[in-house]
């Protein structure tokens, strides 16, 4: 290859690398706030993948664009192009390099996954675990040690959260985008799940595994607060009377005033009786 | 439309190739059921339904012997046909069919006497699914054999080759092999 070509290609590569790095940095802003330790790990992995992906995408797109713009046949030129059938060296290069890249990505991902260790270990006492009940179409959180039932998940900040996920009917999905964690809940099994919230705030919990008619309405809130506020909330809830929580699916199903006609649906479960009545979502 | 003239590219070899390909695919269904059975059995604490301590193996064992023997019988029938001995072929072919019918009869008798049903837990479901699906294939085999038997009475039926008999025979061996695996899984594996 000519020297000038090598120089040109290197400059292009550097420019692409800069753009790729920049988009990798931008990618952090495409997520919800980093409310858990796991979020930081995942966002970092994603940023790396975005940089790599951008480089490859722009490289290939650039090559194709160049061809489309500058390598068109002249209007009346019906002759063939050069009879180049292949190049073994190139074939090997573009097999080996991607292979190395995916091995690298796999390794990095494996590291991140083991650092996350969201699937329950067992080196904590079960009594610390919060019981999460999911049913069509409501979330119910029980704090057995404190005798509190809630329709919203309260967690103390900077403490590992231990959950026991259960479903009473179909497969649901426990998903908090701000934490970047998700786990399908299989009926008939209790699944130990854990993560570490690091940012105080109110976040959304959404059912992520399609669970029937009112699937989209099966959402709740996760409130991450200081340990003191958390204890105060537990104490005051324990004293409060238990009343049915607001449940969107239940409301919609029982308000037959809707003019939208549909087919028969499974009846939503009765809303859970909770100590802590939160404002309706 | 498409003419019936035998062109350069048509030949019975294509039909044989296609049939083998089909059987290979069909075996994957059974393989999937077998895998399902294995997963269910290894993951459950109480595998057999309440009240059932073990399966009676005497009847199924006899059935197994009959089915395996019938594979030899059908092979003999094929050899007779190959040697152009039509009556030899027909007798052993009919014998194969009778053995197949005996197998189905034995299956029905076993089913009748079982204390659990299709909907009795995962075991009931898996048991009847596997044996039923296999039994369906035995029935199909016997039906194919009866068609082949009828055709053997048509003059000049084998002038262009014995593809139908070959395919029915291979199918029968296939059904036999499936049964052996099934027998090991359901009746022998504790």
């Amino acid at each position, binding site marked *: 290859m000519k020297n000038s070509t090598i120089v040109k290609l290197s400059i292009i590569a550097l420019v692409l690398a800069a753009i790729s790095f920049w988009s990798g940095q931008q990618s952090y802003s495409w997520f919800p706030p980093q409310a858990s330790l796991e979020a930081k790990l995942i966002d970092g992995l994603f940023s790396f993948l975005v940089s790599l992906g951008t480089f490859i995408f722009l490289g290939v797109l650039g*090559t*194709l664009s160049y*061809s489309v713009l500058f*390598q*068109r*046949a002249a209007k009346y030129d019906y*002759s*063939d*192009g050069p*009879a*180049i059938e*292949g*190049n073994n060296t*190139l074939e090997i290069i*573009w*097999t080996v390099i*991607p292979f190395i890249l*995916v091995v690298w*990505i796999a390794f990095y991902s*494996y590291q991140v996954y083991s650092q996350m260790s969201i699937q329950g270990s067992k080196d904590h006492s079960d009594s610390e675990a919060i019981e999460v009940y999911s049913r069509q179409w409501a979330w119910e959180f029980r704090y057995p040690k404190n005798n509190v039932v809630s329709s919203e998940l309260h967690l103390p900040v900077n403490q590992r959260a231990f959950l026991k996920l259960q479903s009473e009917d179909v497969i649901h*999905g426990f*998903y908090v*985008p701000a934490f*970047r964690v*998700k*786990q*399908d809940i299989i*009926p008939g099994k209790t699944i130990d799940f854990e993560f570490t919230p690091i940012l105080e705030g109110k976040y959304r919990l959404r059912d*992520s*595994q*399609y*669970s029937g*008619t*009112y*699937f989209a309405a099966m959402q709740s809130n996760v409130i991450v607060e200081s340990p003191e506020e958390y204890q105060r909330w537990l104490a005051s809830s324990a004293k409060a009377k238990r009343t049915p929580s607001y449940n969107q699916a239940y409301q919609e199903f029982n308000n037959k005033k809707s003019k939208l006609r*549909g*087919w*028969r*649906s*499974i009846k939503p479960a009765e809303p859970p009786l909770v100590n802590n009545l939160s404002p309706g979502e | *439309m*498409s*003419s019936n*003239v035998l*062109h*350069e*590219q048509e030949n019975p070899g294509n039909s044989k190739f*296609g049939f083998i*390909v089909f059987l*290979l*695919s069909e075996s*994957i269904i059974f393989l*999937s059921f077998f895998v*399902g059975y294995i*997963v269910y059995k290894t*993951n459950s604490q109480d595998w057999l339904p309440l009240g059932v301590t073990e399966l009676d193996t005497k009847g199924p064992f006899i059935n197994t012997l009959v089915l395996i023997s019938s594979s030899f019988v059908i092979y003999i029938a094929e050899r007779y046909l190959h040697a152009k001995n039509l009556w030899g072929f027909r007798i052993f072919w009919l014998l194969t069919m009778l053995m197949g019918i005996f197998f189905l009869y034995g299956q029905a008798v076993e089913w009748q006497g079982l204390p659990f049903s299709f909907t009795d837990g*995962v075991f009931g*479901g898996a048991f009847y*699914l596997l044996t039923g*699906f296999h039994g369906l294939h035995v029935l199909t085999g016997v039906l194919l054999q009866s068609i082949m038997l009828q055709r053997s009475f048509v003059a000049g039926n084998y002038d262009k080759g014995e593809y139908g008999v070959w395919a029915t025979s291979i199918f029968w061996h296939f059904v036999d092999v499936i049964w052996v695996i099934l027998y090991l899984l359901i009746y022998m594996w504790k």
Partner: protein
Amino acid sequence: MTNITNVAIEPANWRRYFSFSTDHKVIGIQYIVTSFFFFLVGGLLAMVVRGELITPESDLVDRTVYNAMFTMHGTIMLFLWTFPVLAGLANYLVPLMIGARDMAFPRLNAVAFWLVPLLGTIMMLSFLVPGGPAQAGWWSYPPVSLQNPTGNLITGQVLWVLAVAISGVSSIMGAVNFVTTIFRMRAPGMTFFRMPVFVWTVLAAQIIQLFGLPALTAGAVMLLFDLTVGTSFFDSAKGGDPVLFQHFFWFYSHPAVYVIILPVFGVFSEIFPVYARKPLFGYKFVAVSSIIITILSAFVWVHHMFASGTPPWMRMVFMASTMLISVPTGVKVFAWVATIWGGKLRLNTPMLFALGALVMFLFAGITGIMLAAVPFDIHVNNTYFIVGHFHYVVYGAAVLGIYAALYHWFPKITGHMYYEGLGKLHFILTFIGTNLTFFPMHPLGLEGMPRRVASYDPEFTFWNVLASIGAFLLGVSTVPFILNMIGSWSQGEKAPKNPWRAIGLEWLISSPPMIENFEELPIVTSEPYGYGGDHALVANLEHLEIDHE
């Protein structure tokens, strides 16, 4: 030789296309037209979905209706559009490309086709039964798919399972036919490494159908029994294992996506050399990569279940295998780029569609590698990121690739030229529409919007509005295509044998081909894609057909 009186097919005799014809060319067209009808039906369902999602609230249709819409949209698009249209293209082209007069089993071929309108009718009828059609997503995961509010025996879900079973039977018939044809009916001189890549990819795809479909059938049979007689295979309330269904389902349905994309790759490999006037770069590598993809495709299915109850070791193993499959895929992408590079490009409609499809596939492939990374997938699994990813594949790459094929071989199939201007308009609308619809789904997924939702939190509104506008644009984009196809077929300029000056057996015969394709079977003497070279493709060109001109 033979004394066949070869007659050109009369395209004006439309009755042929409604008959039980055993001619692979007729069957191919039957598949293509039937499936395009269902493409429009599936598209209409998508319009309802996108119409609902313009606003956060569930206010356009009842939630049960919405759930039926997305369920049937996915189901119809896969089983009644994508699989049959590709079967149709393969049916039409493979015998021509290998120099055969027809498929190995012409009557089986016809039966396989006629099962498609049957299963389509069942799917459509399911809208009319009490309880409505299936509403459990196109995966029909139990236990949701086992819930039966009406208590009837014949429900939309039951009809769904029956229709899918029929689809499986049809596909297996087709697969046996294609594999036998390709192995045993290649013209003299056509070794495996002289087959066009399209034939390689059809072979690879049909092998996948053969080993994958039976697993789906097994799962479907068990689901059907759970639904109708009350067995407990997947019902956790009765001791069953719902995750086992997922394994059965995905063991087929993941390789199924390669059944879809491999022939599309084949189309790219045929089109780029023609419109760049250059041989396919690294033909042998491209051909072999199809088989490698087939083999690897059997070992990646659990990546659809990273968030199910799968154990960590399983997640890691399948992460590795999923990442690995990107390597042979990358080989193909680079080969196409190298084919195009340095060529003499003509940007006809087929080339535009193929280029657009390639770029969108590249994007989808990159997001695919991201999804293979388990920690990232845990965040975006079951969100719109996934919906965006796979639509870039099935719409961006596959639909555009299919359009490319339809335009490219339109002259051969119909004997007429299509209107190039309308074709370019179709391309522009489609390319813009596809990106506008499916790109916004990626940020939506990153922000945490789940898929399959009839309503969403207001923060997601902006991207949803964009996506819906794009979707309506896509609906509009089909109009120039339909007009072009109908108008050109009836009024278009007569097409010569080889309007694109392409190298391939199908371009040596008349447009449309004679009933038995070749007067005398071609004797192949060189590798395909010999652009710029001087090897003759066949030794007996003069004998291939009677000149009717």
